[in-house]
């Protein structure tokens, strides 16, 4: 199963901000981390990641600088800013709402795990 392109794009910003909130990182490592987290199910490309990083930088959510960590190549590291953290918190609330709502629908709000089929229920969540 592959996650659709639209969904990947929609979740891209909180994903990157979330990873950068853990620690400063660079492009290749961010992509690997996403692979790791999703078990390879999220199909990210460089064409998605780098322009996104640049947009976040333009919006002031991240900062970048070229750094050489001991024994490694000089790399462009990204660091999340205050405004990025605020953005992440906001995105998180939005995603929580979406995920909660989906859970309610799929699990009927009773915590039991029924098969994933549409079951019309009694109107309230």
């Amino acid at each position, binding site marked *: 199963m592959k996650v659709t392109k639209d969904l990947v794009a929609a979740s891209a910003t909180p994903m990157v901000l979330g990873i950068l909130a853990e620690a400063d990182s660079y*492009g290749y490592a961010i992509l690997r981390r996403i692979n790791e987290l999703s078990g390879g199910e999220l199909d990210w490309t460089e064409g*998605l990641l*780098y*322009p996104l990083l640049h947009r976040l930088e333009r919006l002031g959510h991240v900062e970048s600088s070229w750094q050489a960590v001991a024994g490694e190549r000089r*790399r462009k590291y990204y660091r999340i800013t205050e405004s990025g953290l605020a953005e992440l918190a906001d995105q998180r609330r939005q995603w929580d709402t979406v995920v909660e709502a989906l859970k309610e629908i799929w699990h009927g709000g009773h915590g039991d795990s029924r098969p994933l089929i549409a079951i019309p229920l009694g109107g309230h969540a």
Partner: protein
Amino acid sequence: MTDDLEAQFAQWRHYVQRRRELSRPDAEELEDHLRGSVDELVAAGLHADEAFLVAVKRMGSLDDLSREFAREHSERLWKQLVLTGAADSPVADTRARRDLLAMAVCAAGAAASVKAPELFGLNFEEDAAFYGPNVGLFVLPWLAGFLAWRRQATKALVGVLLALFALGAVAANIYSLAEDSQSVVLTAIHLPIALWFVVGLAYVADDVRAPRRRMDFIRFTGEWFVYYVLIALGGGVLTAFMFGTFEAIGISPEGFISQWLMPCGAAAAVVVAGWLVEAKQSVVENIAPVLTKLFTPLFTAALLAFLVTLGFTSGGIDVEREALILFDLLLVVVLALLLYSISARDPLAPPGLFDKLQLALVVSALVIDVLVLLEITGRITEYGTTPNKAAALGENIILLANLAWSAWLVLGLVRRRAPFAALERWQTTYLPVYAVWAWIVVLVFPPLFNYL
């Protein structure tokens, strides 16, 4: 890492840097990504070559990548002229700053030079006979100086430049010409042209003999002209607003505008335009060839229509006093159309429709000019000559000779008998002829025609 792999990276970097959407730091960032990917694949047991191929394949096509970058950085698709503070390279940045400073000094110098004669009691309105012939001498040495500084001209060349400007100063002032004499007008027109070729010498300072550099000077001239006109338009807008706003508060800025803003602005703009052409040379497309492409068909149509109409009405051309000058200017325009399409043409391209169009343009201009010349030589032999007529006639012949031979070479090009390079070489070799003629008019004509 093996050398082989490094070579592959270098090649890849080369491809990436050709993409306008990807700036230099982007390319470095992507290269780091590619290296990360290769390292991982090598660690997983792949051979370096294989790892590189797989990593590049994973990154996807550069087209897709560029498109994604362009969505975030659409401004990069518009070439921007970054005058200073270019992030790409600190060396280029220092260079740009130094250029900017030198330009400012030279432009200020040019502006000051135009005003300097007022210290000796001269002014624009009453001493036209002084300012007319000397105007090029106030301004062009500064432009030549800027270019010579930029090219780090040798001492010998700087000496030659100084000597030529001194010669110009002598020519402009040694003959006491009446304000309303023809010679004073001729000098005012021809000395700037003669001095422009001195600027050309400064322009080609780094390689005086190369025909390539002469072609560059032709390109420089076209772009300089376009930029100067644009700056002049901007200056016009500035003047209009200044006039209007100050009038509104009851102060007339007329004296300031006509005595300071316009003369100093016009002089400084000569240097600024030259600097702009130098700074944007590789950044912005040349505009003169674009104008050429637009107007070559239109001029061809107009000239052919004129010839056809002339044939039908079968009346001769009514050669007034101004007619010869008008047709001189026509030849100059046709020559410029030819020159600037040459300047932008790919030397190896096969002859195409545009070359045929150009042949039609040049031939029709030649036919018209020959008709005019036949009329006018009759006049001159009848009434005797004046400096104006002699200068106009001489220019006509010079341009005619150039265009006739050019027409022959373009014909050869269209028939695939002669290479394009022959046409290019003809034009660059011909350049000194204009310079020599302009100097002759300035130096020899006044005594020749008894300072008429």
